[in-house]
């Protein structure tokens, strides 16, 4: 049942993504101002939104763990953080390439990209800390605390960078999603759905790995006891 769900989600997500590519490359009219590079938005922004969604899941799972002390919440948190971090990396890479074409520089310290970088760094620390703690309960509690601190920091980061940028006048991304022409909305939304499906499939795989790891731990203890 679980396997079927994972395969189902994965295949559905991949198919949607492929269909989306057809739309993106062959159907959509080209943007007059930015040219072909504009098409990268159909990966760049959905990846960011998917990452945000999964980070949100991670924070909720972290709070649930602290509340219930049930390890399945810890598994959910680490899975969501890993997949979210991967999507954030996709977002940063595509954003950097877009910036290179648009403004000639590989990185612009604007509010959105820097917030994404901050998210990446914060949750990278989370992923780095986990292997450093041997005891499962300690590890899960610490991860949960870190995750909540990281999530609390994000609005402050956004506020700080926006205030900072007002004076230094760095270039900001021209795109505001509100200003997206109607013809671009379908592939955009389908892209988000496709990424969410694929991401969910990856999280389910990761969840299964976590429960297998717990089973390994208990088997090891049993072997020691025998």
């Amino acid at each position, binding site marked *: 049942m679980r396997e079927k769900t994972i395969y189902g989600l994965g295949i559905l997500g991949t198919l949607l993504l492929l269909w989306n590519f057809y739309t993106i490359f062959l159907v959509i009219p080209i943007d007059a101002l930015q040219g072909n590079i504009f098409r990268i938005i159909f990966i760049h922004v959905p990846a960011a939104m998917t990452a945000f969604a999964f980070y949100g899941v991670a924070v909720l799972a972290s709070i649930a763990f*602290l509340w219930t002390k049930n390890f399945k919440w810890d598994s959910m948190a680490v899975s969501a953080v890993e997949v979210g971090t991967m999507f954030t990396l996709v977002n940063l890479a595509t954003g950097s390439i877009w910036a290179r074409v648009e403004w000639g520089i590989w990185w612009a310290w604007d509010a959105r990209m820097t917030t994404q970088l*901050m998210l990446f*760094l*914060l949750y990278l*620390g989370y992923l*780095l*800390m986990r292997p*450093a*703690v*041997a*005891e499962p*309960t*300690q590890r899960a*509690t*610490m991860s*949960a*605390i*870190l995750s*909540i*601190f*990281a999530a*609390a*920091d994000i609005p*402050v*980061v956004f*506020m*700080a*960078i926006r*205030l*900072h940028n007002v*004076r230094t006048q760095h270039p900001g991304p021209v795109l505001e999603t509100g200003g997206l022409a109607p013809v671009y909305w379908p592939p955009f939304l389908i892209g988000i759905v496709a990424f969410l499906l694929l991401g969910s499939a990856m999280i389910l795989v990761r969840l299964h790995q976590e429960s297998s790891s717990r089973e390994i731990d208990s088997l090891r203890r049993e072997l020691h006891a025998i």
Partner: protein
Amino acid sequence: MAALAIAGKDLRTEWRTKESLNASVSFALVILVLFSFAFDLDREELLAISGGLLWLVYAFAGALIVNRSFARELPNDCLDVLIASPAPGWAVFLGKAVACFLLLILVELISLPVFGLFYNIHWAGSIFPLLLVIALATWGITVVGTAFSAVTVNVRLRELMLPVLLYPLLIPLLIGAMEMTTGLLNGNAVLSDIRILLVFDAVFTSLSIYLIDFILVI
């Protein structure tokens, strides 16, 4: 009351050995010297980066101090004793945070004249706004640093993990502090970013106090 007792204990211990105080001050001075070799700047450029430079030094020194905060309780099971004592978790946390705060302020006040000397920057003119910025930002550093010191107390490679976890979180605070300090050192007494410091301090003080029981029981 328990918080004050714990703060007093930490400060007294530190004052007798002065180990992290010495380490921090030396580290801060060394970094100040290194930075002077790293850049070859004229007066304008130096004033432009002055705030950033100062807060980098303070952040590095701060990590050293907060790292010791809970780590010093590890030998002889002192940490277990603290947790088992009738003092509530938040009192232990606040006591340690206040002690770190005072120690870090001391390091910063020692480094500030040295900074002014090496880089030929006049800081005495806007001393009161500067002290306000230093106080607020230092409280932010110590409150988050002490919380993370508690979180990482049992982690392998603690000295390495604490900065890796701490600095990304501190970035908005440091941005605000750096901007304002640069402005103040350049002679504009404008505290436009004070909101960031206040919001950061409020959010993370309350979050740390609320979560400290979960952190300490591990």
